[in-house]
Structures are given as C-alpha cells and as structure tokens.
C-alpha cells in the first residue's frame, strides 16, 4: 500500500499545487469582491451612490428655462427644439446655481453648426448639410442663421 502511494506521491504534490491555487483564488475572491456586488445586478451596488455623489456639471434644460423663457418660447417652434441648451452653451450648473455672479461666454457658432451640418456621406438626404467653405466663404453661420430658431423655410432650400 505504502509502495503504491510512493509511486503516486508526485501526483498528490501536483494535486496539492492545484489545491493551493484554488485556495488562493477563493481567498482572493473573498477579499477582492466588494460586499455589495450583485445586490442589484451584475455590478457593485454602491457604484450608484458613488456616481450620484459626483458634483453635477449640467444644470438641465428645465433650470435654463426658468429664467430664459423668451428663448424657450422661440425654440419651441424651431427645428432645433429637441437640442439641449447645454449641448451648445456647455455645462452651466455653476451659472444656474449662481446666476448673478457667474456669466457664461457666448459660444462661437460656426464650429458648433458644422459639427452637425457639415456635408458627410453618412447623413440622410433630408438633413440639411453644406460644405462650409463653399456655402459661406468664411462668414460665421450666425451672421445669417439664428441658432435658436434656424428657420429653414424662410431662408430657403440651401439651409
């Protein structure tokens, strides 16, 4: 019997090595997996709290419209009505929190306009696009178009 074990001893050692590996893995799992992992889904539940505690940078459209109701009314009928204010004006929670002290800069229109309206094969045919250099010869877009209410109908088919 002892002889038989002797000839299998190296296998027992290898099995032991695998066992140690498995044990290390189980211990690591216990140590490294956050306690609340899986409580709400395949993620760490407290990650939600972590994210919600991050300071807000965007105020949100509703906050803008509290004061700027004239712009809101103008935009409501325009083709740009679904675009969020801060998509062009930038994150402005600081301004919304303290409207008397923090004043945002007026954004430069052209780079914002061409981000969507520059001609590109992947854009659908109904969407107004232009080749900026040919279209305006360097003139800023907001010289002719009003970003809050671009009014394609009035300006004509060349957008």
């Amino acid at each position, binding site marked *: 019997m002892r002889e038989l074990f002797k000839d299998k001893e190296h296998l027992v050692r290898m099995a032991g090595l695998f066992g140690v590996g498995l044990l290390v893995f189980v211990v690591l799992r216990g140590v*490294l997996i956050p306690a609340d992992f899986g409580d709400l889904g*395949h993620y760490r539940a407290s990650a939600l709290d972590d994210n919600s505690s991050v300071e807000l940078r965007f105020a949100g459209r509703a906050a803008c419209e509290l004061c700027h109701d004239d712009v809101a009314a103008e935009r409501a009928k325009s083709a740009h009505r679904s675009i969020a204010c801060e998509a062009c004006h930038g994150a402005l929670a600081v301004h919304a929190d303290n409207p008397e002290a923090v004043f945002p800069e007026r954004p430069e229109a052209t780079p914002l306009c061409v981000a969507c309206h520059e001609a590109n094969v992947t854009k659908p045919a109904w969407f107004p696009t232009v080749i900026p250099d040919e279209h305006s010869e360097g003139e800023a877009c907001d010289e002719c178009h009003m970003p809050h209410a671009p009014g394609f109908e009035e300006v004509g088919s060349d957008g």
Partner: protein
Amino acid sequence: MDTLLAMVEGFMYPNEVELQWSVLIVLYPYITGLVAGAFILASLERVFNVEAVKPTYRLALLTALAFLVVAPLPLQLHLGHPERSFQMYLTPKTDSAMAMFGFVYLWYLMAVLVLEIWLDYRRDIVLKARSSTGFVRGFYQVLALGSDNISPRSLEIDERLGRFITIVGIPSAFLLHGYVGFLFGSVKANPWWSTPLMPVVFLFSAIVSGIALVMLVYMVVSRLRGKPIDMRCLDTIARYLLYAFIIDFSLEMLDLIHRMYEADESFKSLDFMVKSRLFVSQILIQIIFGTLLPLGLLALTQVVRLTEMARKNIYAIAGVLTLIGIFAMRWNVVIGGQLFSKSFLGYTVYKMDFATREGMLPAIILMVAPFFILWGLIRILPPWGDDAPPSTVDTE
C-alpha cells in the same frame, strides 16, 4: 477619419465608418487556432496510436503551449486595462460567451496542456535534476515538485493519466477553438458571421493551421539541429494535413454555396464585397493561393511518386501557403465582417496603423513572440528523446 470618409462607398451608419476590431482581433483566433491544431496533432500519437507522428509529439505540445501563452495578449492590447481582466474570473458573468472564455482558456492551459506536458516530461525533468548541479538542479527539482521517483510503476501511472488527459484534451481543444467560432457565429446582427457552421469551420481551419505549423516547425528545427527529417513522420503529417484540409474546404464551400442558394437580403451586399474590397484577401490569397494550391500540392504527393527532396519542398511550400491562407481566412472573417454597412448600402475600408497599440508592429511582435517562447521551452524541455539512451539523458 476624413481620409476614411473619403474612401467610404455608398451609405454607412456613422459608427461603422471606423473599424472597431483591428488586426489584433484577427490574430486572436489565428493564434488560438494554431494551439488547438497543434494539440490535435499531438493527440493523434497519444490517443489514436499513430506511431509515425511520434517524433513531433512533444514538439507539438510545446508549440501549443508557446502559442497559448501569447493567445490572450492581442485581446489585452485591444481592450486596454489588462489589470482588469482578472475581474472576469472573480465575478464571472455566466450568460456572456465572451466573458466565460476566460475559464475555457484557463482550463485548457492548466488542466490540459501544462499537466500533459509535465506528466510526459517528468522522467526527463527528474533525470535532468539528478545530473545537474547548482541553480539548474534546483530549477529542475522545482519543476519535478521535489519528487525524485521515476520508478517503472510511477511512470506507468503517469502514462495512463497522461493518456486520460489527452482524451479529455481533445474535446477541450475542440471547445477552445469551437468557442472562438461560436463568438463570431452568434453575432446575429452580422450576416457575414452569423452561421451555426462558424464554430465547425473555425475548428477545422484551426486543425489545418496547427498541423501545418508543427510540420514546418519540425522541418526547420531538424534542419537547425542538423538531424535528418523522419520522412515517414513528415509524410504522415502531410497526409493528415490533406485530410483535414479537404474537410475544412468542404465546410467552407458548403457555407458559401448555402449562402448563394439561400441568397437572403444581405447576399447582394456581401457578394459585392467579396468581389470588390475582399477580392485580393478572400478570392486570391485565401481560396486560390491559400487553399486550392496547397490542396493540389498535397494531393500531388499522394498520387505521384516523388523523391524525398521534392516531397520536402512541396510540404514546405504547401505548409507556408496554408498558414497564409488560414490567416487570410481569419482576416476575411474579422475585417470583412466590418467592411459592409448593416444597411447593406455601403462599404468602408480598414486602415491599419503601424506603431500604435493596435497597429501592425504589435501584431508582428505578437506573431513572432511564440517562436521565442518555443525556443525557450525547447531549451528547458528538449523534445527529442532520440539524443541519448534513457539513463543518460543529461547530454544536450
């Protein structure tokens, strides 16, 4: 991006213009395929008792190990944050095929390949420890797990266990590479990939590439060592390569004919792609030069009586063409699957960078690395048992 847009033809959705899966994702199935194929060649000798391929048995196992170690690296480079990959084991997401691959990989690496190599080499390791001194002795003693027992009875137990592991290893190797095919075959949004034949096609192409690789490695290594090539062995490997290749080619043609006959809504778009943007890599490199030509050459050696020299040359050419052809197949699957728009209305191009994280340079390094690892493995565990009589294996 602008240069890419200029090369787009027709309509692409914005997120399709730039390819997300680069040449590294081509390498990943290619390298895993070489592993699975090399292992299956090794198992021919062990399980199916094909005595003729014995000279390549250990070489094939070491080749499989060298490539398996490198196999996850393209994925690590592609995804970034390698330190996070361990999470896949800590918190496994059981309903994700991609996430569970880590376990398939680990199983194959540890439970199959490392264990089988260890059992097969144990006698050599112990003899090496006995015959050397100092650091080398310590190193081999650690490899032998401190055991010095190589009694006939213990070796017989090793042999039986090794055989059992190889038997388990064959379905594991099938799983390893079938799995890679499954990952592509189950992407239902992509008609170029989505076919239940994908795992089977991947598997047989893997066997083909692995056999071709071991055949070439054996020829090169024999030459470097100045030893004669065992022609019975080489002829047998080449014959198995031919058989596997015929099955692989039949499956790929079955897939193709099925697609042509079915001609679903994606067919026109894919057909145009194969005839235009994929013409060189698919029709010329993969099918004509990478499949039909090596198939013809290998078949020639079966029907015409050729000299030893001629056969060696043919095998070398056929082996290299096969490896190029299977690489092209992986390329055409991975890259081809991203060149057409899911609207079936347009095509983009793949621009490969050079010295970037997912460029050509890391791809070349990853492709060369397994050969250096193999060289190292061969130094530590010489696969040739023909050098010395059993009791004095210490000569090197």
